[in-house]
């Protein structure tokens, strides 16, 4: 195999901060069917022990795909995973960072991209990884 276009440790450009405001969260609730009030109703969120409404974890995860396709156009995503570390408040901005964690040689080379979601304060709210195939790996 020729030299990897993206060696282990390569860091992709962080995604532009995405504002996940009440309208974006409501749009995701409608599109996904997940209308848990902790995402939509301040009083319900507080009653559940939260400081306020929080973004759906799966809304964060949904943005992984866009980030990956931005970094690696035409990529074939073989797996995705995420671990939710702490809630992200509705109204926060989210940035996704990506770094090549491992190259998997083979007939169709793959790479594992480590993904981190950070809030406005730079605090990690979720971590995950993706296994992808792309022609230029």
């Amino acid at each position: 195999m020729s030299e990897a276009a993206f060696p282990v440790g390569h860091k992709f450009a962080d995604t532009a901060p995405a504002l996940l405001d009440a309208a974006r969260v409501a749009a995701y609730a409608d599109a996904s069917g997940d209308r848990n009030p902790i995402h939509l109703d301040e009083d319900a969120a507080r009653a559940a022990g939260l400081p306020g409404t929080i973004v759906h974890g799966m809304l964060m995860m949904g943005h992984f795909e866009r980030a990956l396709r931005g970094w690696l156009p035409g990529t074939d995503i073989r797996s995705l995973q995420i671990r939710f570390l702490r809630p992200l408040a509705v109204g926060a901005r989210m940035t996704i960072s990506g770094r090549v964690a491992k190259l998997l040689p083979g007939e169709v080379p793959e790479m594992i991209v480590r993904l981190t979601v950070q809030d406005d304060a730079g605090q990690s709210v979720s971590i995950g990884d993706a296994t992808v195939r792309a022609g230029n790996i």
Partner: protein
Amino acid sequence: MSEPDWTLIAEVELATAPDRVAAFAAAVGGTGVEADDRVPATFAFTVLSRPEILGALESVAADRSAVLVHQAQQFRYEQALEVGRPYQVAVDWRRNPDRGDRIVVRGRVRDAAGRHCQEFLADIVLFENRRADGAGS
């Protein structure tokens, strides 16, 4: 059919009507009009919001006076889902043998010909004290 330790909740249809997929794609940061009639990578998870599935999971949580907290999520893909095609999702769950407060929910997606397309696994905490110190949903 479920394997030992897995309890089937339901087999449901996953509709990929263009308007639904477009709304979901837009909600997770896309334009709503993706290349290749591709269904977003996390779209199949939406079946967990179906009343018959969510109700079954909430019943498991209610047995412990708990609420469902989504801790982690993974997807493994065999073939991409296409807009406008019908899919079936077998949703089942099992307890984490090492943690009484954890369950895993699994969705296995097949196309109309019965071919396996993808599998997703949701790690869920049965959260009992209603204080939110972790996780999205």
